[in-house]
């Protein structure tokens, strides 16, 4: 009987030494997260937390690093901008990052009983991560089409490229839907949303100055009327002016 007790005690001690306080594991020491890291991290954030458990946030100094790493554009840029890597390879990586980003969008969607977002800054950071990613992803996709086409100047190729750019613009327009939910955002959230328009939409228009922005312009017009935030109004107004400035006289 005594022997059994000793063995039991030893087993309990061993189990106790095996316990760690770290509940969720993230590769925060890793300089760049690759698509595999994203798969694991996004899975953990989507399914590894209990419904009432606090997710990593910018405001929590202990978990800030996780959300900063998660939304760090360097993670994709370091591969997608690397001209030493092949175009096809970069395109494949971009596609995988895009799929991961789609899964990332579910992480910070929770709202409270007053329909306010619990993690608006984080949710918008995830959105902005995707806006930056899509700019590179669609560019690589189009470059790949041009490279593999028999005649890059053919109407078919041009149509395909224009269609991709239109899809990109449509995806960007979805970001502006956030303005419809602005009552669910905190003031800092509204600031972040506005900063996203200033940064990423400007990059979009600068990258594709000749694209058809009629759908985006319509959206801007409607959102300008709807928003109560001066900052967002100002960002939309600046964007509208930028699009106008890129138009040729015939347009």
């Amino acid at each position, binding site marked *: 009987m*005594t022997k059994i007790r000793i063995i039991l005690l030893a087993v309990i001690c*061993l189990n106790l*030494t095996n316990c760690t306080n770290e509940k969720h594991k993230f*590769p925060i020491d890793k300089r760049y997260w690759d698509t595999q890291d994203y798969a694991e991290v996004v899975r953990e954030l989507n399914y590894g937390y209990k419904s009432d458990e606090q997710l990593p946030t910018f405001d929590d100094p202990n978990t800030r690093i996780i959300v900063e790493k998660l939304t760090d554009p360097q993670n994709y840029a*370091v591969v997608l901008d*690397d001209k*030493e890597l092949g175009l096809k390879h970069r395109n494949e990586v971009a596609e995988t990052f895009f799929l991961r980003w789609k899964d990332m969008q579910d992480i910070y969607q929770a709202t409270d009983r007053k329909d306010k977002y619990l993690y608006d800054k984080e949710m918008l950071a995830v959105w902005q991560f995707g806006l930056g990613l899509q700019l590179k992803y669609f560019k690589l996709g189009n470059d790949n089409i041009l490279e593999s086409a028999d005649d890059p100047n053919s109407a078919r190729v041009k149509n395909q490229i224009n269609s991709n750019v239109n899809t990109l613009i449509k995806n960007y327009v979805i970001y502006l839907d956030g303005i419809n939910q602005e009552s669910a955002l905190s003031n800092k959230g509204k600031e972040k949303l506005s900063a996203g328009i200033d940064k990423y939409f400007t990059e979009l228009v600068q990258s594709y100055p000749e694209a058809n922005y009629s759908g985006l312009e319509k959206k801007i017009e409607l959102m300008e009327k709807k928003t109560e935030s001066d900052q967002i109004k100002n960002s939309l107004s600046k964007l509208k002016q930028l699009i106008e400035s890129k138009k040729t006289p015939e347009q």
Partner: protein
Amino acid sequence: MNETFIAILIVTIYFSPVFYQLVIVIKESKKGNRIPLKKFFKVLKYSLFIIIPLIIGFAIISHTNYFNYEKPLTYDKYDRITFENFRGLEFFKKSLYGNEHFAYVVTTIESKIDENSVTVVSLFYPSRSYVYNTYTNSTELLNHEKYHIKITELYARKAKKRLSKLNHFSPEKIEGILKQIRQEERAFQKSYDYDTFHSYVLSEQKKYEREVDSLLNLLTEFKNPKITINDKN
């Protein structure tokens, strides 16, 4: 189960006769019986006699794989180096930032001071260098690791260049230069791994390759291991 748990479990099982004897000693000491104490020390002695050589042997093999030994290679064998030369064993590190497909090289700058000359060579240690799979076809990984060898050679040549500028043969000064060079080499190796993120960032990898190759070319005159220092008046 994590590795710490497995290690504790093995140690506990191995020392279980010692723990058992210890319990008896505690029990019997209350009755004033000293005989179990002698038995306890005997069991402890035999347990340690067996495990200490095993630990030492394990540590030696972890450091240098003498079961598959290949003597250190000098830089002139550089072109012949493949992953088949990576013969080291790795018992503790299972992955590098989550990547199980990793490798590392061990290199050093060795020196020998003679009467009026110094021999400086860069060495690559096959039996201390590790790759997850000797037969891997990952040329990028091999290339990254081989540039660590080139960096060591580069600093060996830099050392010889600095030594060649000495006006007098002074072992202290020579040792000082070599110590400084070794520190600089380690720092450069670290930046190389950090900036290329172990070859993940290919543009950085190529930048380093160009820089190292060009510097090695510039120091071709210091290719010879031996450098003679004559007193200059």
